[in-house]
């Protein structure tokens, strides 16, 4: 339990507070038990289906809610300092991006390719550098990354977990490029409600393209990895968004930091 904010003043009042705490605690635990009781089979199935369909949106709402909170906190901290500068207004307008950039460092990584070198008596097998270098987030632990990021986009967010990772790039006019990678232990849904669905081939694997107003999502797999590229540009024509998203997806390469 957290520390009491409004301490009772005498033993009787402390006792009364404790009784109310214990009563509400027991009521909450009883409610937990009720919540855990299975419903009838049909309702359980319906609830599970809705739960699975809701997951992507819930994750996005949680993400944007927490991001807003962090930016607000950073704004409270950073604006007074920024106001000291001559370009205070410009800084304030760009505050969101400035805050996000500060937490996303990048390092150079080499793009590598699979190479078979046939000798007289054996064949060398392995990955060799192509000579191309790209910027990848410092925290990124996966050996895959796109070599193409549309012009004007800047790295804003990086998240890396066990078998799952994601980066977010932001551009002008709230343009957003989100790239996710997850292994086959991960489960999830792609929000395709109201979308037009196409299929395509990326690196020899079948990919799904979900397109709705201002947004294109591409999902495909390579081996055990599932890749998702989502590009949101509400003020851009659909074919341009699709073309750019495909270019990002097709540029995924094996990299080595």
């Amino acid at each position: 339990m957290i520390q009491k904010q409004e301490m009772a003043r005498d033993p009787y009042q402390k006792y009364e507070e404790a009784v109310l705490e214990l009563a509400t605690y027991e009521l909450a635990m009883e409610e937990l038990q009720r919540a855990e009781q299975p419903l009838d089979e049909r309702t359980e199935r319906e609830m599970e289906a809705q739960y699975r369909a809701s997951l992507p949106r819930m994750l996005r709402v949680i993400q944007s809610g927490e991001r807003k909170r962090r930016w607000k906190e950073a704004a409270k901290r950073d604006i007074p300092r920024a106001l000291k500068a001559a370009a205070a207004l410009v800084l304030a307008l760009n505050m969101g991006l400035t805050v996000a950039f500060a937490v996303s460092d990048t390092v150079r990584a080499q793009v590598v390719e699979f190479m078979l070198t046939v000798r007289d008596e054996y064949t060398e097998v392995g990955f060799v550098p192509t000579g191309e270098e790209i910027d990848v987030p410092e925290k990124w632990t996966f050996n895959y990354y796109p070599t193409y990021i549309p012009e004007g986009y800047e790295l804003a967010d990086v998240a890396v977990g066990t078998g799952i990772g994601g980066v977010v790039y932001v551009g002008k006019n709230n343009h957003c490029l989100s790239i996710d990678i997850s292994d086959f232990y991960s489960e999830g849904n792609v929000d395709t409600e109201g979308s037009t669905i196409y299929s395509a081939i990326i690196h020899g694997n079948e990919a799904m393209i979900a397109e709705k107003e201002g947004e294109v999502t591409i999902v495909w797999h390579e081996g055990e990895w599932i890749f998702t590229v989502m590009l949101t540009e509400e003020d851009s024509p659909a074919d341009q968004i699709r073309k750019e998203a495909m270019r990002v997806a097709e540029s995924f390469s094996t990299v080595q930091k």
Partner: protein
Amino acid sequence: MWIPVVILQMEDVESKGFMEALYRRNHRLMYRVAWRSGLRSSDAEDAVSQSCLNLIRAIPTLRQMGEREQAGYIAATVRNVARNLHREQRNRREMADGERALGEVPDEGAAVDAEILRRCTLDEVKRGISMLSEDDQMIMTMRFYQNRSSKDIARELGISDGAARSRISRAVKRAFQKIKENEE
């Protein structure tokens, strides 16, 4: 399983691991509580999402609890968010209908003293609280079970600190009244 990116992004490795494990254990429970509170589709999603954000801010509290207590706290959080969502929807409907905006229940009869708690059993106190309106139960849970300050409650309900204090005080008085009525 997909984990909210905000959890994966936590800089503090311990908090990240703690929150990830907590989410893995309880994410279905959260949806279940929202569902059982009568919320469907986007309302259920909103309740779970908002609860997750509230829980991230309650990590220090949750850390001090056992797994079962954490589940209880999480269920209570979702239940309260669901109640608040119902309250907001009701208020919007009443505003549209020109009725009173706040779901306040008027005080009835003479104030009952807190002394009543000293002569009642715990079950009688629980019964009194469970007979309160949904709004009052939400306030009682936040204040006494979750031990949240009036300022914190005010922020979640979108009301002033003074209004939150007044609602806590009224909910407690009404709980005493219910206990007394049951006693008689």
